[in-house]
């Protein structure tokens, strides 16, 4: 019983001192978060850094990237921060940095789903680009295969093959030709558009069309 109350007091005391310490740091301890940004050498750092900023906790503190790709964010009190690189060219993973009251830094991978998992990284920070920033969807590009296998083209191409190439092939082979002729294709009467129109709109236009049609019939004979 005695012991229990003692531990309780001890715990309480430690909490109290911790709170006190925290308040003190707020006033005194101001630290700097340092690091370096790296990305593929296609872009020079000097040109890129003009459009980049380093944000701590989404803009609570901010800093700029120097021309040699290093950065330093100053006057940061102790605590836990998310370090992000603001730019429009590359994708960077955010990093979590813990600063103790004595100014000791610890960097770790930021996993927002499980904030308690520790996956320590090196400090000073090394932030590497994961790839170029992609803002746009890709338009479907025109490809030959796409066009050839599209249902519309297939619908036109397959009958064309049947109609044009098959008779040519059979022309050389008389046996096959006979066989084909024996195979009675169902005859489809395709209505002539011109005639259909003439029938529909009889009247004045009719005689002219009729003669034309008659001529055609005669020629066929």
């Amino acid at each position, binding site marked *: 019983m005695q012991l229990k109350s003692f531990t309780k007091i001890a715990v309480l005391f430690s909490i109290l001192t911790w709170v006190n310490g925290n308040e003190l740091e707020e006033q005194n301890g101001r630290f700097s978060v340092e690091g370096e940004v790296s990305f593929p050498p296609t872009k020079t750092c000097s040109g890129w850094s003009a459009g980049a900023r380093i944000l701590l906790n989404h*803009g609570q503190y901010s800093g700029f990237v120097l021309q040699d790709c290093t950065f330093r964010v100053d*006057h940061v009190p102790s605590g836990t921060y998310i370090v992000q690189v603001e730019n429009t060219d590359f994708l960077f993973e955010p990093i979590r940095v813990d600063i103790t009251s004595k100014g000791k830094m610890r960097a770790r991978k930021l996993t927002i789903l499980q904030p308690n998992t520790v996956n320590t990284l090196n400090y000073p920070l090394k932030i590497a680009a994961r790839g170029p920033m*992609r803002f*746009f*969807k890709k338009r479907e590009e025109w490809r030959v295969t796409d066009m050839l296998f599209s249902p519309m083209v297939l619908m036109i191409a397959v009958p064309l093959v049947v109609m044009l190439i098959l008779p040519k092939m059979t022309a050389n082979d008389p046996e096959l030709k006979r066989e084909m002729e024996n195979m009675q294709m169902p005859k489809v009467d395709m209505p002539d558009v011109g005639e259909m129109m003439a029938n529909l709109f009889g009247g004045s236009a009719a005689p002219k069309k009729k003669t034309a049609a008659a001529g055609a019939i005669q020629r066929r004979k």
Partner: protein
Amino acid sequence: MKLSLLVIQLLVYSVVAIFEDQAGKFDWRKTLIGCPKSTIFDDSGRSDRIVVFTKESIMGSLSLHTGKIEWRRILESTASNDAAFTSDDEYIYTLSDGGRIFRSWRKVDGVLVRQILVSEEISTRNSIEVLDGNIFIATSNKLMSFTPEADSPANVVKFTSDRIFSSFFKQGNELLFASVSKISPKLNFVSINKVELFADGVDLDFVSYEPERCHVQNMYISCFNGNKLSVADVFDKNVFHTELDHDITNVSGSGRIIFARGITDLEVFEISNSNIVALKKIKVTPDEEIGFVEPQDSLFLVSPSYVRVVSITLDTAVRVPRVASENHSPLISVFVNPVKKNAKDYELLVVGADCRLELLSVDVSAKAIVSEWNREESLINVESVELVDLPLTESQQMIEDEFEDNESNIMSAFIRRLQVQFGQFCRILSRTFENIFYTLSTFSIHGNGLSDFINSIRSTSSSSNNAPFERDYFNLRKVILATTINGAVFGIDSNDGSVLWKIWLGDDFAPLESISAKQRVPLYVQRTTAHYQLDGLASVVFSNKKTKYGVIVTFNPMIGQVVSKNELPYSIKRISLLPITNQKHVYPILVVDEENEISFYPSINQNELSSCSSLFLMDVDRNSKTMKGLEADLINRKLRTVWSGNIGLASNEEIVAVKGKSFQQKVHSQGRVLINRDVQYKYVNPNLAAVASLDRKNQQLTIVLVDIVTGHVVHSAKIVKAAEPVHLVHSENWIAYSYWSEKGRRTELGIIELYEGHGEQARKEFFDSKLGNKHQPAVLMQSYIYAQGVEAMTISETEKGLSMRSILLAHPSGNIHEVSRRLLDATRPMELTPAMREEMIIGYVPEIAVSSEEMINYNLTVHRVRGIKASPSGLESTSLVLAYGTDLFFTRLVPSGTFDILKDDFDHIFISMVLSGLVFGSYITKRLARSNALSAQWS
């Protein structure tokens, strides 16, 4: 199961992103730099530029020839304006963040070259100077020198008391530091040799220093008091006193010349041979602003309508008129840059009180002024935004006309119909001819080949910029009205972001103070352009700087013409738009004064008022945490308290957001279909307000939903371990909010949805708060993890509220992220059954992913976003969005995809060409087949 979930998510996401060739098609961005505090004309390097340091703590470089921003850096924004800034041939040196960080930047492209941590504590009075690469920095309590190599100071002089004034003086290779301490009015000197600092024993007696009554130039400090002018020569350690015959209001100067300005006179002094000599006296008018630079002889007096060039030694004066803008603001500063090539040419950068920058190029000998460019920098302080439809087109007006009068008989109606259609026919003909001529002319200019021809046809359909100022077919083009806290109102074309007109609200302009101590300039659209016989009306409300009384300025939103200006005889306590119109289709503004009396602008008569049964308002007292439900008695024009209380908020909580609903908001669907084919009705209460309050000590966020009419608390939610920033949006039957979770060290988004309680039918056309519900509404809540910070939050608006809404979130990194309500949904189930999957319901995942493809502004970032305005267009699928911060960004948003319009890449010309080709081909083949058959017959 996971895979299918992923597939569904991908399906949802794929709707959001845009294609690369769509960039810039519907959107534009206007980058801004802010109100200049100091400028440097720079002609080193390849092109001339002006380096500007602004009040918004932004540093940037403008091209001298075009006025375009070459580069811009957003520095730390501190509350006090305490950054210092200097430059040499290659670099710019800044001392920012309360005088704690020194940085040097390359002038050409704004790249950070060097950064030194100067001090730990914030100082309010800072100055900086560079000589031979050595850097000298003065904060309010110490003076430091740095060599070009080392990051630690070479020498430090600590002051015994804080400085209220400090400045460096350069004369050739000699550098001197002068300062005034808080306690004694004496000028204290420190002389500088290379990097060594020597405290000078001599103190110079000087008048008491006040920053607003003193001016510092190369080697003199001049201060005035009444009609007395005192000038200290810092190198000679000498003070000159002189008296004028009029009171001085302002003192300025450059080199050895000092100007003391009274109300009507400008006295010119020169310091020569240890004496102050009055050179000249020039009559000035109050709207003239002076610009002068040594060693030139010409003094520029710039007014909005002319520029006077006066010689300070000779008796010559030239007056050159300039194109006057009707609605101008007074000028606040003029920066002069003599052009090197020609001694008689000058470039003047003129800054107005409305932060308008204009570059004038003045040719004194030819008496000519050319306005090279101008920038409306006031737009960086946009406060309220409204989008107004353009007027109806002529043909739309004809149709309106046709259905307007119902009294006419059949015959006249028929004739009218014929007339209308004839008119439409004529319009189409004339437009087609115009198009053909345009196409032909462009074709003849740069046309060879079919592709050019097709391109020119395409470009005619998109060349709508020179189209008349009227509504387009889908009502996508609007006029953006924007008020700024500088006192300017803008009309902006939403097509390309060009400023159509500007109103200056007067020199007595002051913004209203809202309960959250924010400066507000409310803007109300009182009559839209839907009534084509009448012009649109909009009003802006502000207060008079001197009397603190309210002022209402009413104007035509299309052309920016002021219709009336009402100076109210009292100060405004509360202001709102009345939800009913008077006979002229105007929504009056309801103004409550300090005595709780109500008045209307414009007036509205008793009959019209009777259509509005009762009006309720909620009053929030931030300090005492009490809410008051007020009923406005419109007939007797009095406010009556209905209820009051603290709605369960503790005394240590601070109210961070109060959001009601707009009375114009439309809710399309009354309910949602459940998976068992049941319907759950939405609890759509138009009188519901959401109040968010934060307990900083216990880190607790409370959200209370209160009915304004009855004071009934509908729901209250507590979120533990929450901290600022808190943002809240409220729409239909749901509230979405964002907060910083201290526990998870991440931003979280929450959503609360309200549905009618069990057995409660959605009956009503109207919701009645007083009727009360038998059952409490059912509340669904859900939280999501969000990997980014949130700076501003808003909801997309469409015309009928039929499309799925999207939540727009502005990130501190400058992106604007669109999150569909499908994802931020309180009804996402934890476990998906096959039936749910069939209905395409997305299961709950704790995180709302942020991918760069969902950024509606792709790489056109917008910083320090203060608000996002969403407005419906004529298309149900499309919402128009304007985000405003240090930049303006406008785009079209399609929250549920473009379901009611052909895709913009739909190729009309290609399809019609294919179609006509097919027809033509079939005709040819028919011919060929016929001749083929004939020859077959013959053979």
